Each structure stands twice: as C-alpha cells, then as structure tokens.
C-alpha cells in the first residue's frame, strides 16, 4: 500500500546543510497500523511530510498504491504535531472540521453528518460552535483528529498527536485510534516518542536511528487485536516488547551502528 524506498531528505538553506533522513526503506500494508518511534530530532516529522507529499524528498521515493507521491494525495489525512497552529483560529470548530470536506463532492447534509459524527466520536459534539482558541490543548488536538476522521481518509498520518494531552485523555484517544482503525480499516502511520504508546497501539513498530536516520529495527507486535489499557499494559508480552523497543532506542541514541546485545561481555 504505502512504499517508502531509499528516502533521503537534506534541508539546505541559510548556509546550513542538514541531513534529516539518510536512507529509509519500509512498507506499510493496506489496513495496517504502524508506529514509528525514534529519538527527538531524528527526522520523524520530515519523514511523515515526505510521505504526505508536503515535502519533496532529496532522493528515493514514496509511493501509495503503486502511484508515486509528488503532492498531497487524495484520501490521505495528516494530523500535525503543532495541532494548535493547524486549526484555523478564524473558523469555528465545526467549520474547521468541515473545510476539507468542501473539496469533496458531498451534499451539505452529508457534510453536516460527517462533521457531527466525527466530533461526537472524539467527545466534542457540543463544541462545534466554539472557536479553537476557546478550547483546551487536549480538546484542540481532538478537533484536529476529528477533522482527519471526517475526511474519511484511507491513509492517516499522525505526528505525535497525543504529546500534549494528559494521561487520561491520552489513554482515551489511544483507544479511539484503535477503535477507529478496527472499525474503518484505515491504514495508519503513527509517529510517537512514547515507547509504551507505540507498543500498545501498533501492529508493528518501526524504530528509527538517531540522525542521520535509517530504520534500525522493525518489530511485529504480536499482542491480541483486542487491547485495553488495564490488561494489555500489564501483560508479560507487552513488557517484553517494550523492553525490546526501549533497548533499541537507547542504542539508537548512543549511535551504535548495530543492534545492541544485552549480554555482551565486558571488554578488556
């Protein structure tokens, strides 16, 4: 479904040359939920923008259902890390959610329905008439998610969407993403720096190295599809997986070139 091959992105300008992403290759199958984890600044946002057609890669290519991505593809929705700035302060919440739908060929009644459903599914049914800046940070993020849901995307790209919400809301939103993914069969690429979140949400976790970024490891999360905050997080398998990802991230931060072995003998 989603193919990233040999992706490289170098930012150039104002005398600085930053190689944000060196060489990334991975695929995401149709209807899969994949989490990307990596140290801060390793190029996760850059990668996601290349996938979303918002940035042109320096080398390599991204293709969606066999077609090369060279601009934002239809049927793809993006939830930005800076959700506050991603909502338009001059529009009410309902209009923010509705705006992308106006590009689609939908009747007014159908648009209303989609907006209402999307807001209801993030628990903000009565916030449609408010301005985004009248809402809390967590509520704003839920509006941004509702906007993506109302768009009925086939592919959903989420960039650390829950970084700024409290633990309880975060747990609810995680369950919401899992539920929507299972109900609607969307393909989701979810960026996070939270290891527990990655393991809890994903069917697969891709661990990125520190910059210059390559794929460090891909891990299948063989937890049951039915997950819940209380039981899944204390399951022994969950602990194993999170430890595995944790080790990989630590190794990535140290910049080790090969996967670290925990039982390496002390040198000398």
């Amino acid at each position, binding site marked *: 479904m989603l193919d990233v091959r040999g992706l490289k992105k170098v930012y150039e300008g104002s005398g600085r040359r930053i190689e944000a992403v060196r060489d990334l290759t991975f695929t995401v199958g149709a209807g899969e939920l994949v989490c990307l984890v990596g140290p801060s600044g390793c190029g996760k946002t850059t990668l996601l923008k290349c996938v979303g057609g*918002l940035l042109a890669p320096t080398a390599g290519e991204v293709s969606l259902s066999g077609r090369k991505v060279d601009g934002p593809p239809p049927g793809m929705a*993006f939830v930005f890390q*800076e959700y506050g700035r991603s909502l338009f302060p001059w*529009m009410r919440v309902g209009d923010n959610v509705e*705006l992308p739908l*106006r590009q689609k060929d939908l009747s007014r009644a159908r648009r209303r329905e989609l907006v209402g459903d999307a807001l209801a599914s993030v628990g903000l049914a009565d916030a449609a008439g408010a301005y985004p*800046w009248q809402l809390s940070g967590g509520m704003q993020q839920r509006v941004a998610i509702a906007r993506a849901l109302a768009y009925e995307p086939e592919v959903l790209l989420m960039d650390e969407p829950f970084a700024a919400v409290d633990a309880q809301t975060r747990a609810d939103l995680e369950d919401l993403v899992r539920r929507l993914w299972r109900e609607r069969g969307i393909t989701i690429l979810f960026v996070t720096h939270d290891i527990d979140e990655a393991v809890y949400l994903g069917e697969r976790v891709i661990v990125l190295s520190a910059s210059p970024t390559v794929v460090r490891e891909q891990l299948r999360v063989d937890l049951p599809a039915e997950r819940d905050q209380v039981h899944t997080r204390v399951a022994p398998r969950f602990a194993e997986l999170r430890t595995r990802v944790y080790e990989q991230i630590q190794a990535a931060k140290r910049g080790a070139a090969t996967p670290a072995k925990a039982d390496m003998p002390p040198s000398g």
Partner: protein
Amino acid sequence: MRGVNAALGAAGLAGFLALGEAVPRLGLVEEDYFPPTSRIADALGTEITDPAFWTALGDTLTGWALGLAIAVGAGIVIGVVLSVVPYLREATASTIEFLRPIPSVALIPLAVLLYGTELRSVLLLVVYASFWQVLIQVLYGVRDVDPVAEETARSYGLGTWARIRHVLWPTALPYVMTGVRLAAAVALILAITAELVIGAPGLGARIAVAQTSQAVPEMYALIVVAGLLGLLINVGARSVERRALAWHQSVRGEVTV
C-alpha cells in the same frame, strides 16, 4: 473609568472652544483672521442651510469613497497576486520602494494636464496615495501566514484559490484592515488637497472660494467640517475593523495574558 475619561475629554474640548472665543475678543489676535468660536458657529449654521454646501460635501465624499474603493480593490488584488505568484514579489520589490515615497501632491501637475479639474483628477491623487497604504499592509499580512496552517490546507487538497480564500485572506485581514483605515484618512487629505489646489468641485474648492472672497468665518466653518469628516471616517473604520476581527482580538488577548 470610561465615563471619567469622556467627561475629561468633553471638558477639554469646551475649554478649547472657550479659549477660541476669548482670545480674539480680548484682542490678543487679529479678529479678522481668527474669528471667535461663536462667529464660526454662526457661519457653520448658515453653511448647512446652503444647498451648494451639501453638493460640495457630496463631491468630496464621492471623490473620497470612489478613490478609496479603487485603491483598496487594486491594493488587495495586486498584493495577493504579487505574493502568490513565485518570484513576482522579489521582482517588483525595488520598483515599489521607488514609487511608494513619491508624494501624491507631486502628481498634481500631471493630474491637471491629464484631466483638468474633473473628478478624475482627484481620483488619480487619492488612488495613488491610498493604494500604497493598502498594498504594503497586504504584503506584510500575507507573509504572516502560518506554515503549519498552509501545510494543513495543502494536505487536505485545498487548491490555490481555496487556500487564498480560507488561509491567506483571513491571516492578512487584520493587516488589510489597518491598511484600509490608514488609506481612508490619507484619501480624505488628498481629496481636499486636490480640490483646494486644482479647484475640482468639493469642500476644498469651497474653502478656496471662501478664502479669496475674504469670508473668513465661512472658511473656518468649512475647515471644521473637514475635520469632523476625518474624525467620522476614523471612528467608522475602527468600528468596522473591530467587527471584522472579533476572533482575532480574542486570540491576541489570549496570547498576551
């Protein structure tokens, strides 16, 4: 607090008017050139019963409104086009920096050559002066577009026109409003200047006639009218601005807290 300020303002104005009455009466200044307030008020009373005065006021307002409308329309359209088309902004920057500081009044001879004392003469000057106010603000406003908002719009497949309408325009609107308010003030100045100097019909021309016929109180009365006009225009522009930017003011309020 507001009430106190208003009372202070009214008291200050009353004091000023009283001073205007007293100083000429006491012979501190030549009464022929500085008539006391009451005589100016008399003259104003006579003016507003004269249909010719209202025609002149109408002419001035026509020149002002038409010129302002043209300047605002052109300023917005050209500003947006310059910003949206790649490289156009850079290509035109130096030309704009050259043309903008030319004082509009320097174009009076040109206006006379082209259009004589017609309304079009006034329009030329008014449009030239107010156009830059709007254009510069639009150019600043467009630069203020949040890259995240822009990327959001692109990611949802909004085309160029939809992005102008839903992202660029609302972002630039506060700047545009400032531009319009400045342009409205400048347009009035230029309209009256043009009438005064060129003799195009309007309040300015009437002031010139009053001056040459030694009708000094009438001249002052007309100057007062011009001042009141400026005041009304400013108050009007501010209230339009407040209404259009209700969301924006609140955002600002939230940020500064």
